[in-house]
């Protein structure tokens, strides 16, 4: 396994979640969120582009960001399962974002000392961006969790549905372990404490409890995805597959 594949995992996480958020554009429950969610999507897609570029360079087979994003099928995508979960209702969307950002914030903070200068550069920007993703998503989780009877029920449903995808965030694939040994990327398992602290803080204010998950869902890092990813990629890739190299 190679370091470039670990960067591909990270890039896929960011692209897939960025695409999911962009699906809210024009459909968000209010104008504020119609601005917020695509703005957050841009942050994630911006990071993904730099990571794909680096992954393609390290692979050395001439694949650029477009080749990696548009010409791989779902079995070749290496994103974790959390990020591909469908938007469902707003509670699912904001909780998915909170989980991801609460993991990525300490991750990027540690990646500031990466042995790779490009990773350092991405980390410097993305760490700051994750801080406000946590804030924005966290405020919504609190507002809904400690809101009306219905919003509280839906928020609790989202926790029930998404908490089983949390553990996979902390797993390091063989490729990730190689990147960690080389000092290119931080050790995923080490984010647990910081993650738990943010979730505990938000959940206590949101009157929610983080359930004990007996059996977490895994498989994204080996290309075993849910049905939803195929639909997402079909929409995202159709233009480039019909018109390779299209620009506008």
């Amino acid at each position: 396994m190679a370091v470039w594949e670990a960067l591909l995992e990270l890039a896929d996480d960011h692209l897939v979640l960025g695409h999911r958020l962009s699906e809210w554009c024009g459909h968000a429950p209010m104008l504020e969120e119609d601005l917020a969610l695509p703005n957050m999507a841009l942050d994630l897609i911006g990071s993904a582009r730099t990571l794909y570029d680096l992954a393609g360079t390290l692979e050395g087979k001439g694949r650029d960001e477009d080749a990696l994003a548009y010409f791989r099928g779902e079995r070749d995508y290496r994103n974790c399962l959390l990020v591909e979960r469908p938007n469902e209702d707003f509670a699912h969307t904001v909780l998915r974002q909170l989980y991801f950002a609460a993991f990525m914030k300490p991750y990027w903070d540690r990646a500031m000392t990466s042995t790779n200068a490009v990773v350092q550069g991405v980390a410097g920007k993305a760490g700051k961006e994750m801080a406000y993703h946590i804030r924005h998503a966290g405020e919504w989780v609190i507002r809904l969790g400690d809101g009306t009877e219905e919003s509280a029920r839906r928020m609790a449903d989202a926790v029930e549905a998404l908490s089983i995808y949390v553990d996979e965030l902390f797993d390091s694939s063989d490729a990730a372990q190689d990147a960690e040994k080389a000092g290119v990327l931080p050790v995923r398992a080490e984010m647990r404490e910081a993650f738990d602290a943010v979730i505990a803080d938000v959940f206590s204010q949101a009157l929610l409890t983080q359930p004990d998950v007996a059996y977490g869902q895994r498989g994204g890092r080996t290309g075993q995805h849910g049905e939803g990813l195929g639909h997402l990629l079909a929409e995202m890739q159709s233009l480039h597959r019909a018109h390779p190299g299209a620009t506008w």
Partner: protein
Amino acid sequence: MNLSGESDAGAAWAAAAAVPDPEVPCVSVAELGILRWVRLEEGVAVAGVTPTYSGCPATLAIEFAVEAALREAGFEARIERLLSPAWTTDWITEEGREKLKAYGIAPPVNGGKATLFVSVSVACPRCDSLETERLSEFGSTACKAQYRCISCREPFDYFKCI
């Protein structure tokens, strides 16, 4: 154009620095701190430009505009995109902050790195009142948030602190 001597670097800087930001045209790329430096390397003016946010859609437009300004000033030009260290609103110059305010955009609150759920007090760019409230964390561009002044009732943009 015949270009020689020490003042060339200064001329190249001046040409690049005057380029307005495409999304906030009241300030230049130098005042925003996204133009980091301009060097002459074997006769080529090389400009170091840093993106504000990872996905800032204006990044490419800014790079094109700086390159065009350098060419217009008679230089061969090249852009170097700088990712590290990451841009921070602390790099906005004092002049830039004043121009933002005059334009109706509240400049970032210095030293006001917002922590989780703690928001800073933002002064209204029109009446300087600190009685303001945030309407939305996100505004017309990635770098701005929407606020409202409780004293004079005017809504305004706030240049977020990162």
